[in-house]
């Protein structure tokens, strides 16, 4: 990879005095380790990397490596979309001095990541010291991701209350909502400050769905973790499972059979399809367009039924495996017929729905200029996936970091500049069309060919990223194996973790009754965020 050489030379020339460069097991990863004495340059280094290579901050991984080398390690992961490369800036942290300078002022998208690291590992990114993941009744000095914290510990509740930003002023009052909501939604607490009608501030407290997923995976065999990965966020079961498998395969230098890549791509698109149509239905329902919603939700149901027919699971579970896939969605004439049918009739039903919606000016009026997320804010907060693309962020891992079988496919990445609810619906509509076309391109490419390699032996003490462009946005996993080839550390990054802050911005100056539709237009995962 000559591009990689170029990057190495460039980085060595400009930053060689403060960091060492190492290639990862996976061909598109470059590990840059910041020397201990250069810790003070961390924010500047991050900012240099993002600016000189047009890199995007992707995730921050903390790892308790005390048992291996006496230190903690923080890895700041950047995606370089133009050259399909990942730069992973690693910083050692001494157990005696659990502090690094915060990078949030140069990289606002890292804000929540730093706070989670403080709660879970006790490593402070000074001065970004606010709680995020730990609820107020969680003791200050207990950090569950430390290796010496036993996951079976029963941690006592302490007294404490949420620290919300209070907006003061005449006629300003607060409306608290949740964690149990009115509809069938996941748990979270929202606190609105309103002045008359408009919302002037929204604070969100999440992590009600925190299940210790990353922690309980430690010591598990990678094969078993696949089942956990399927359950990080139910509506992205396949996306997360493939991201994890991808991670293990990269770390093991294992190539999956071509047929497996094709099937994965197909199923990722089917996951996108049922979620996008469901979201369009949800948006229509929230603005009272019941006839349109019914069509969309019925189509979603048909897609879920198709999933079950093709894979045995409506949520596409039990298909992904390290080294390929467990079943072939095109191995019987019945399945092939059902898929072909969906491509004709499902598509037709979808087009009918679109023309129904687009001819309803009252619906369009409600969606237009509602819940605007400006491009500047989206860029600043590092918003990913459809929410980002609807605010003009031209990013998509399917094109920028081709995985599965996306490389040779023809498809367009759709964006919109408006950033309102309508834009988020429009991008979904365009993406549904692309998904149908992608599935069509992949249809009947050697059905029945072997779709799984033999037993994959996962090597000890290796680390790698794994990723897919899920329907919501980029799903990025990073994992390291222990001496036995089991999981030593697993970091899950759901696109929702990047995107939750977008909602707090998008609702400002909108009225409370519009909150549900704004929220729906992002449709973020609580469980994926909280894990």
């Amino acid at each position, binding site marked *: 990879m000559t591009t990689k050489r170029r990057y190495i030379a460039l980085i060595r020339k400009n930053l060689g005095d403060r960091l060492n460069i190492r290639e990862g097991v996976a061909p598109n990863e470059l590990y840059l380790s910041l020397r201990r004495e250069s810790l003070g340059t961390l924010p500047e280094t991050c900012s240099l990397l993002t600016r000189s290579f047009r890199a995007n901050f992707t995730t921050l991984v903390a790892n308790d490596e005390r048992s291996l080398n006496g230190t903690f390690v923080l890895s700041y992961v950047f995606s370089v979309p133009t050259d399909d490369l990942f730069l992973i800036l690693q910083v050692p942290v001494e157990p005696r001095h659990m502090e690094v300078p915060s990078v949030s002022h140069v990289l606002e998208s890292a804000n929540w990541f730093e706070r989670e690291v403080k709660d879970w590992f006790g490593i402070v990114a000074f001065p970004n010291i606010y709680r995020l993941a730990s609820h107020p009744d969680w003791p200050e000095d207990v950090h*569950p991701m430390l290796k010496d*914290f036993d*996951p*079976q*510990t*029963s*941690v006592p509740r302490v007294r404490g209350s949420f620290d919300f930003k209070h907006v003061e002023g005449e006629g300003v009052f607060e409306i608290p909502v949740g*964690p*149990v909501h*009115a*509809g*069938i*939604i*996941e*748990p979270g607490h929202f606190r609105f400050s309103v002045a008359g009608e408009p919302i002037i501030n929204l604070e969100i407290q999440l*992590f*009600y*769905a*925190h*299940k*210790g*997923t990353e922690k*309980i995976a430690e010591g598990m065999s990678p094969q*078993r973790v696949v*089942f*956990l990965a399927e*359950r*990080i*966020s*139910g*509506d992205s079961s396949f996306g997360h499972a493939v991201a994890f498998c991808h991670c293990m395969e990269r770390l093991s230098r294992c190539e999956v059979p071509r047929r497996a890549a094709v099937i994965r791509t197909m199923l990722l698109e089917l996951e996108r399809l049922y979620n996008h149509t469901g979201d369009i239905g949800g948006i229509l329902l929230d603005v009272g367009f019941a*006839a349109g919603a*019914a*069509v969309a*939700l*019925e189509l*979603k*149901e048909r897609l*879920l039924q198709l999933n*079950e*027919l093709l894979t*045995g*699971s*409506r*949520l596409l*579970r*039990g298909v992904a495996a390290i080294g390929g896939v*467990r*079943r072939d969605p095109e191995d*019987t004439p*019945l399945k092939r017929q059902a898929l072909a049918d969906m491509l004709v009739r499902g598509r037709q039903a979808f087009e*009918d729905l679109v*023309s*129904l919606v687009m*001819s*309803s000016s009252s619906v369009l009026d409600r969606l237009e200029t509602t819940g605007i997320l400006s491009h500047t804010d989206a860029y600043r907060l590092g918003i990913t996936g459809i929410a980002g693309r609807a605010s003009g962020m031209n990013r998509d891992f399917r094109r920028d970091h081709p995985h599965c079988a996306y490389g040779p496919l023809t498809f367009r990445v759709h964006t919109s500049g408006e950033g309102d609810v309508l834009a988020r619906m429009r991008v979904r509509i365009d993406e549904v069309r692309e998904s149908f076309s992608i599935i069509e391109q992949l249809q009947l490419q050697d059905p029945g060919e072997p779709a799984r390699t033999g037993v994959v032996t996962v090597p000890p003490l290796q680390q790698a990223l794994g990723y897919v462009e899920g329907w919501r946005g980029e799903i990025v996993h990073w994992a390291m194996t222990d001496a036995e080839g089991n999981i030593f550390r697993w970091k899950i990054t759901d696109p929702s973790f990047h995107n939750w802050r977008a909602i707090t911005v998008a609702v400002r100056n909108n009225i409370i009754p519009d909150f549900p539709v704004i929220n729906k237009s992002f449709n973020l*995962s*609580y*469980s994926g965020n*909280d894990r």
Partner: protein
Amino acid sequence: MLRILKQALTGGVATNSYPRVVGEPPDGFRGKPVIDFTRCTACDACAGACPTSAITVQTSAQKRGERTVEMNYGDCIFCGECEAACPDAIHLTKEFQLAVTDKSELVTRGFYTRGSDGVYQYSEVPAQTRSHTEPVEEIGKALKKKVRTLFGRSLHIREVDAGSCNGCEVEITALNNPVYDIQRFGVRFVASPRHADMLLVTGPVTRNMEIALKQTYDATPDPKLVVAVGACAIGGGVFGKSYASCGGVDAVVPVDVYIPGCPPRPEALLHGILLAMDRYPHQGPAHTA
């Protein structure tokens, strides 16, 4: 407007006919795994493959050469790994209506003794009879009483996500779509526990949802039904019990009906809800009591 009318008129009837007709899931569907105890040799291969320890093989501490193979459908996530590990004695059926009112009914056991050749053999004589006959009757009676008080009218459900992965919510939401149309049973999802007759709870009950679940339960007027949806809600599922998870709904509030699945498909949910309402036509608490 014309278009909408046209859509409404030409849309046709989408709703399925459950429970009059229980549709068979497609081939390849992963439903209830069944162990053929006569072919099983209590070798432990399935237990080793099961990601949630729904299958266990225990060697008796008292009597040498005795083993128990136990399958708990409450913990099962229907992944099919057991079948792959032992295609000889285990296969996944298409059965999916697995809801029960008594958790112990989710468990089946086989007892084995080691033969002179060292191979474990299924022993015909069960070493232990079902120990829960009485409590079942009690539970059945109590449930019937509640149901009688509740259903002179329609059923109002409050859904509580106690930290699920959202998979169960995808399926519960589907109950409202035109295909399952749960409203035809007089069942409605309501926005406040104060208006609810039934709490439909998902997730393993995270530490951070424990108090909220208790509060919701307390705010729901008596008599009330609690239905635990999915492997997580029954016994923690893949997440088990940990610093972050209570390991199931009945660790926090009493539960009337358990619906296995990960997630249960919409018809399995309907089955469980109707079972709780004592309105499922074929079986239900009326028959067990």
